[in-house]
């Protein structure tokens, strides 16, 4: 009885064979639809801050650093990879990549910064500001009841936490290139 049980256990084990991977040497690709590190396409981004305002973990920051330059900063150290930003982006500028091996000894590797040239408003002379000109109006959000402007003012803005030191130049730093003619 005892022996029989043990043999059965052994049989299960041996039938399965070795299932663990020889991991770092033998990569395992992520399946389709995997929610890895989000990637911004700066050519599509319009700087509407929809992602920044609805990131549950508040890892996306937006800030105007001068009249025409707006910076989007994404900090994946605290990202929960929920993919909410991808859902919300009206321009489909964000995609979830299949990158999940994110360990690094340099914190800068975990951030993505996008420099965006913004249009200046013909009438008031400022660049398009999300508080005034609401790009969110263009969002079609399933399951999301977006806030009224009054309400959103009450919500603490992640953008107020933005710190310029975070904008060091890194490999992931994206800025618009001059269009080749």
């Amino acid at each position, binding site marked *: *009885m*005892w022996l029989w*049980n043990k043999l*059965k*256990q052994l*049989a*299960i*084990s041996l039938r*399965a064979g070795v*299932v663990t991977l020889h991991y770092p040497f033998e990569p395992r690709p*992520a*399946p*389709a*639809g*995997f*929610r890895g590190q989000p990637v911004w396409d700066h050519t599509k981004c319009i700087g509407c801050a929809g992602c920044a305002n*609805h990131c*549950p*973990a*508040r890892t996306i920051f937006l800030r105007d650093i001068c009249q025409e330059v707006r910076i989007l900063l994404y900090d994946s*150290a605290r990202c*929960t*990879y*929920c*993919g*909410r930003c991808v*859902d919300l982006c009206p321009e489909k500028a964000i995609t*979830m990549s299949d990158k999940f091996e994110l360990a690094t*000894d340099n*914190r800068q590797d975990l951030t993505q910064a996008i420099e965006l040239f913004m249009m200046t408003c013909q009438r008031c002379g400022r660049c398009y500001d999300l508080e005034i000109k609401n790009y969110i109006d263009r969002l079609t*959000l*399933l*399951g*999301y*009841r977006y*806030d009224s402007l009054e*309400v959103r003012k*009450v*919500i*603490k803005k*992640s953008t*107020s*936490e933005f*710190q310029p030191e*975070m904008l060091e130049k890194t490999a992931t730093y994206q800025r618009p290139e001059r269009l080749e003619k």
Partner: protein
Amino acid sequence: MAKKEELRELLKAELKDDFIGEELAGERRLFVDVHNRALVKTAEILMKQGARYQVGVGYESRKGGRGLALVHTFAFDNDALIVIVRTFAPEDNPEFDSLTPIIPGAGWSERECIDLLGFRFKNHPGPKRLVLSDDWPEGIYPLRHDVPHDLMPPATRDVVFRLEQPPPGTSIVPFGPFHSSLHEPAHFSVYVDGENIKGCEYRGFMTHRGIEKLAQTELTYNDVPFVAERICGICGSVHSVNYAQAVEAAAGIKISRRAEFIRVVMLELERLHSHLLWLGVAGHLIGFDTVFMQAWRIRERIMWLAERLTGNRKTYGMVIVGGVRRDINKEKAEDIKQVLKEVEREMLSLEKAIINDKTIHKRTRGVGYLSKEDALKWNLIGPVARARGIAIDARKDHPYAAYDELEFEVPVVDYGDVWGTLVVRVKEVYEAINIIRQCLNKMPADGPLAIDLDAPIPSGRQALSVVEAPRGEAVHYVLTGEENKPERWRVRAPTYANLQAVPEMLMNNKLADFPIIVGSIDPCISCTDRVVVIEIGLQKIKVMRKEELETISRKMRFEG
């Protein structure tokens, strides 16, 4: 629904003037407000009617001048009814009568209110600190509205928690917070006489993350599901579904049937992998690592399946208020069926190999025994209760999502020990497989995944939702608030109820059985603690070098 009317009349008649009012709600809930002085009486009436105590919630109402409120909820499992009793106290004198003398399971809820809101309870047998850390200053109650969510009082060194003295003739063996049988931080101060356990004191809530406070101050309704999912590393979906259901109930939203089925599929997949995980952990805890590895090998298929379905192994991110985010289409349904077939086959052979293994019986039978009466006394739930002959299951008793349409068994055994919980969980694995198959067959072919929420959610509404997590019934209480966020959101994880009875289970067992007994309730300490303070926007992250870590870990503990 006769029971609901009957109870309302009974309460009205018994309490007379103390019955302040009631709130309109769905047919399976009865919300009543009673006067402070009648709280114990109400509880006694309800308990006499056969209620099971669920949870106590305290909150500070933002407006309306009613001061501080205390909510106790009672479930009538046979009548699919939950009674929510609310009572108020003025802000300057938040004193309530304690229910703990009549319902021991209420002890923690009340201690939590003492810590977080500064309530006082008359006749509470042990009003010690429960949730807050040892060095949290007196007089600051984090859940009060005037306390900011990111308040960080300076750490102090010489404050220690007064652990109880061990009974004479015993000495303490300290288990945790960092102990290999506990996979999450919690502290058990176990009193031993030789190798026999003669009692134990629990000091937990070391991972109190302040999630509830966060939801009430920082997040909007639809941010919360993603945070709720991270309450627990295993049953995340349970919490997000539970929260979403509560908000939907409060707002009076009816989501699409297809979304409900998809939620059920995700919940059952979660149960499947959770039970396999438990089986493995249980094997590890009795030193049988092969069971651990094999159970996890089987579980891995489900993890990979989840990855294909949702984009991640564990944090599915499927649920939002109003529906779900991803569809399960034909292709994916086939994938699920295929995986289930393999898992069922593998599970059957694993079960055959271990169910008659005398060596496993030796370590689990008669260990951690608790009689049915004790289990009822402590309001045990989930497989822990079902292993002690108590047939409760929120899926049957308080149907939610699509469970009313599904046919399944609730396995109940009466061993009363660790072995019982093992048997129940193994049987539930097959039930879960069965449920998922039914779902895939019965799911409506179309319907929106999520619906638009057009109107704002009215404030001041209460809602209570229950979901049967793999470990038992999880309870979410939501009080809607202004500004697109909940005013109070209370999570009662299953472990919260079961953990309170662990000292009782440990009594007179061997020290060597400590891991498996604690493991038998499948403790989810972080669920219970709900709670690493998410410091939004705190950018001061420092790379710790070895010396610094050592300095912190050693000096903070020992030189103070």
